[in-house]
């Protein structure tokens, strides 16, 4: 039952406004804005091309970009490109993850390992992956392995450091509680540290797979005959700007979907987690 509203209560109500620091806004508005802003931008984009303010070569109209997308769908190119790129991303990211998780966990727990690998990995992560393409070809050939190697190099170093931080961020007293209860180091590692750090690690997965997506074009830059990134690079040669724009936006959408999937599954897996993000 709603209590009767008196004058005093009305006066006490906090000032409403959309620009209060850190305060929530209506959730409907929050979600709507996510669509409204892109819609406005697309409208402006359409307007600029419709009025002929920019030549189609420099900026094709949204309709032309969509038409290009439809062409790729009907010709079966899009699905073929997307599946081969998706495969490379998955394998590249998984390869990075499989190595980064144990290394990150060890670095987060043992100062000796952090001291040994930390400076090296911190330096390597600034390495320009594009510059390594020639070497990657020498090492891994021109097949899928080379693409996967590039995606691995673009993902691994950051990921290892972030997982180290995830592990370090857990409450030291959880470890101590495990010790006072008589558990061994390896038991504490598996049964206390790992579960405690897992929501954070999952979030690192979400962020790093986004980075793997951004390295796709770089990975498919050389010696590829298919893939979403390859399509964009080919289009460059013929100045097919509609293809470039469609491909770029499509990668963005796939990245967003991956992000969403990780986010939702994380909330499901770690329902017990009290950290609000």
């Amino acid at each position, binding site marked *: 039952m709603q209590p009767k509203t008196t004058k005093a209560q009305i006066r006490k109500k906090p000032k409403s406004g959309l620009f209060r620091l850190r305060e929530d806004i209506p959730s409907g508005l929050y979600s709507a804005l996510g669509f409204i802003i892109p819609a406005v931008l697309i409208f402006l984009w359409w307007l600029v091309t419709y009025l002929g303010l920019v030549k189609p070569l420099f900026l094709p109209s949204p309709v032309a970009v969509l038409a290009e997308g439809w062409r790729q769908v009907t010709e079966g190119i899009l699905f073929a490109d997307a599946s081969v790129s998706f495969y490379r991303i998955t394998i590249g990211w998984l390869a990075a993850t499989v190595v980064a998780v144990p290394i990150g966990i060890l670095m987060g727990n043992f100062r000796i390992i952090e001291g040994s690998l930390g400076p090296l990995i911190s330096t390597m992560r600034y390495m320009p992956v594009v510059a390594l393409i020639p070497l990657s070809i020498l090492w891994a050939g021109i097949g899928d392995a080379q693409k996967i190697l590039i995606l691995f190099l673009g993902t691994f170093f950051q990921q290892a450091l972030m997982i180290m931080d995830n592990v370090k961020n857990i*409450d030291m*007293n*959880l470890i*101590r*509680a495990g*010790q*006072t*209860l*008589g*558990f061994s180091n390896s038991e504490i590692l598996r049964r*206390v540290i790992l*579960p*405690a750090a*897992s929501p954070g690690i999952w979030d690192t997965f979400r962020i790093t797979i986004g980075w793997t997506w951004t390295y796709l074009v770089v990975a498919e830059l050389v010696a590829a005959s298919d893939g979403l990134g390859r399509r964009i690079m080919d289009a460059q040669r013929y100045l097919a700007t509609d293809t470039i724009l469609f491909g770029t936006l499509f990668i963005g959408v796939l990245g967003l979907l991956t992000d969403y999937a990780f986010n939702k599954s994380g909330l499901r897996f*770690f*329902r*017990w*987690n*009290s950290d609000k993000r």
Partner: protein
Amino acid sequence: MTNNTTMPRIKVDAVGKIFDSGTQAVQAIKHIDLDVHENEFVSIVGTSGCGKSTLLNMIGGLDEPTSGDILIDGVSVDGPGRNRGFVFQSYSLFEWMTVQGNIRFALEKSNFSKAEKDELVAHFVQAVGLSGFENSYPKQLSGGMRQRVAIARALVYKPSILLMDEPFGALDAQTRGMMQELLLKVWEDHKVTVLFVTHDVDEAIFLADRVVVLCSSPGLVKRTIDIELERPRNFDIVTTAQFGEYKRDIMADIREETLKVMAMEKHDER
């Protein structure tokens, strides 16, 4: 209550502790002697930085003294052990386990049968007043309830010593009062030796048989006061004249120490 002819449960023997980071050495504890007897409840109070948590950690085996020795039932402490339970200020519960799961986890290294473990878990859930919340996750509980889980987890495997490091420091005043009464009841029902670190003088007196006041930087025992208030105690006791006297004495000691620290800091600034 105390029987001085028997071996003390905890013997802190000329313990000193220096934290040496390689570039800087800080003396946390200069010299502490302390005997705690079986089933005694001892509170340790002092200003921040007096080394009270360090002392507790060393008794818990989570840290090592630089000099001196700590004996539990006459045996030198070498790391954490299941004869001691620990309750931390941060609730430090395993969030991915239910209330029951957290308490049961503590029994994993015990030699009880499954039926005995079930019984112990059920008993302690009830003892700390969490019946009906067995399958809740820590996230769903209030701060006071979480700390009750931590207490149950620290007692369920029957340690002879319970070490508590400002366990109620993060709770609001009302909840803290309730928790103190609950703790006393649990302690009276399951006789165990308690060492309780706090900076709340009322809390220290209300709970303890003996209050140990530590000097600030570096740690020394300034004074030990026997609290001869009747048991079982309830919260009315804090308004008695006797309680007031204890409080006045201890507050005076702590105030003196605080002033000393402030004077030292001033000196350092110059």
